């Protein structure tokens, strides 16, 4: 049994949060540079130039890339042969989140659903985080983190199609979600699509699909093909950077399916989770 210190997990999470909210991930930076080169609309190019300059300023001055430093989202895989010493893993994630948001001068964006009161003031805790836990073989703790903003989350959608809708029905649904979203989610976008499992599982997978680095092909050749086709079709919508009209609306489409593409014989669940151009994500293995 490998023993990991509680404080080490807290520190890793704190540092990861501060770094990833101020340094745009290399895959995103590269995708945005490519979009800038390929964009044909003058006004969208001006917006993309601002986005790239913003990443440079944020990095040089350790300032948040976006003022919406999001909900803290974690996908955690815990090895069966690892033990946390000094507290529970959940407590460590909570404390790391609190420290990261407080000490990084990040905005706390959690509030009461009904009163809308901030759960902590402007210099905040941003608790609770959203945590998906899985237990796997091995002695490592694998943590994926994202700071997910509200603007892009608000236009995300889930549905259950009739099985007869098939691949074409899935495409139509994804196109409708991106088209309806228009300028609001801060394009250019990464589009996460979850297919299969159950209603709720498709939504979780659509969120997890956002963590895959841009440029990494889908291991399933048929899904890889579908991702590429969808990207081309979505870019034909003409939405452009910040919705001002242009050719580069979508940086990537990432699809995840449940184990062996499984779903119920009567159902075809599909979810679309939209990610803005400020995709702040990180992966740590402890």
């Amino acid at each position, binding site marked *: 049994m490998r023993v990991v210190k509680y404080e080490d997990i807290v520190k890793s999470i704190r540092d990861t949060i501060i770094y990833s909210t101020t340094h745009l991930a290399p895959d995103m930076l590269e995708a945005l540079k490519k979009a800038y080169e390929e964009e*044909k*609309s*003058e*006004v*969208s190019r*001006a*917006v993309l130039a*601002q*986005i790239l*300059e*913003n990443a440079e*300023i*944020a990095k040089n*001055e350790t*300032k*948040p*890339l*976006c*003022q*919406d*430093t999001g909900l803290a989202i974690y996908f955690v895989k815990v090895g069966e042969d690892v033990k946390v010493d000094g507290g529970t893993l959940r407590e460590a994630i909570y404390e790391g989140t609190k420290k990261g948001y407080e000490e990084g*001068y*990040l*905005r706390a964006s959690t509030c009461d659903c009904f009163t*809308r009161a*901030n759960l902590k*003031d*402007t*210099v905040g805790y941003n608790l609770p985080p959203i945590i998906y836990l899985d237990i796997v073989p091995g002695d490592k703790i694998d943590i994926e983190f994202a700071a997910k903003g*509200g*603007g892009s989350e*608000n236009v995300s959608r889930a549905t259950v199609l009739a099985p007869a809708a098939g691949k074409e029905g899935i495409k139509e649904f994804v196109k409708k979600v991106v088209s309806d979203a*228009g*300028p*609001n989610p*801060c394009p250019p976008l990464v589009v996460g699509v979850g297919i299969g499992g159950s209603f709720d599982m498709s939504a979780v997978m659509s969120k997890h699909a956002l963590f895959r680095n841009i440029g990494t092909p889908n291991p399933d050749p048929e899904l890889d093909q579908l991702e590429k086709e969808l990207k081309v079709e979505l870019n*034909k*919508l*003409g*939405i*452009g*950077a*910040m*919705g*001002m*009209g*242009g*050719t580069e609306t979508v940086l990537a489409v990432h699809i995840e399916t449940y184990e062996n593409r499984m779903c119920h014989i009567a159902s075809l669940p599909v979810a679309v989770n939209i990610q*803005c*151009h*400020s995709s702040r994500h990180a992966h740590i293995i402890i």
Partner: protein
Amino acid sequence: MAEYKLTTPLTDEDVSKLKSGDLVYLSGTMYTARDAAHKRIVDLILNGEEPPFDLKGAVIYYVGPTPPKPGEPIGSAGPTTSYRMDPYAPTLIEHGLKGMIGKGKRNKDVIDACKKYKAVYFGATGGAAALIAKAIKKAEIIAYPELGPEAVRRIEVEDFPVVVINDIYGNDLYEEGRKLWEQK
């Protein structure tokens, strides 16, 4: 895509020359306000009381910044999605507001009020929060400090970069820009 430099407060003459798609650099005094602050300001106006700042020629920036680091006037400060302010914006425009800065679509009431009372909706680049913060030289909370990031601030800006989305002539860049590049 024309480029303009304008100083607040904005006049009818200023906004008359702006067309959707123009790039504008704003300087001068602006105010920040989001959902809860808008509701309070509109309630004051409807009760016949004075709003916390002079609306004549004013520009409101929809933002909920990150906390400032010590010694800085403001934290990262990109625009928030504007539709949440749609129920309140027409009343403010009627009472003199000349400019709104945010991101995302506005409803018909706001667009109609822009035409009728000569006001403009500007889009700022969402997520470009570190870049925009550089244009904000001073910030001071002038109302509703208890709202935290949603408090009303008076900000002094220099060359704050925005794009005209809705002008006073009924043009909408989100509609027209998209039509121009859509491939059927």
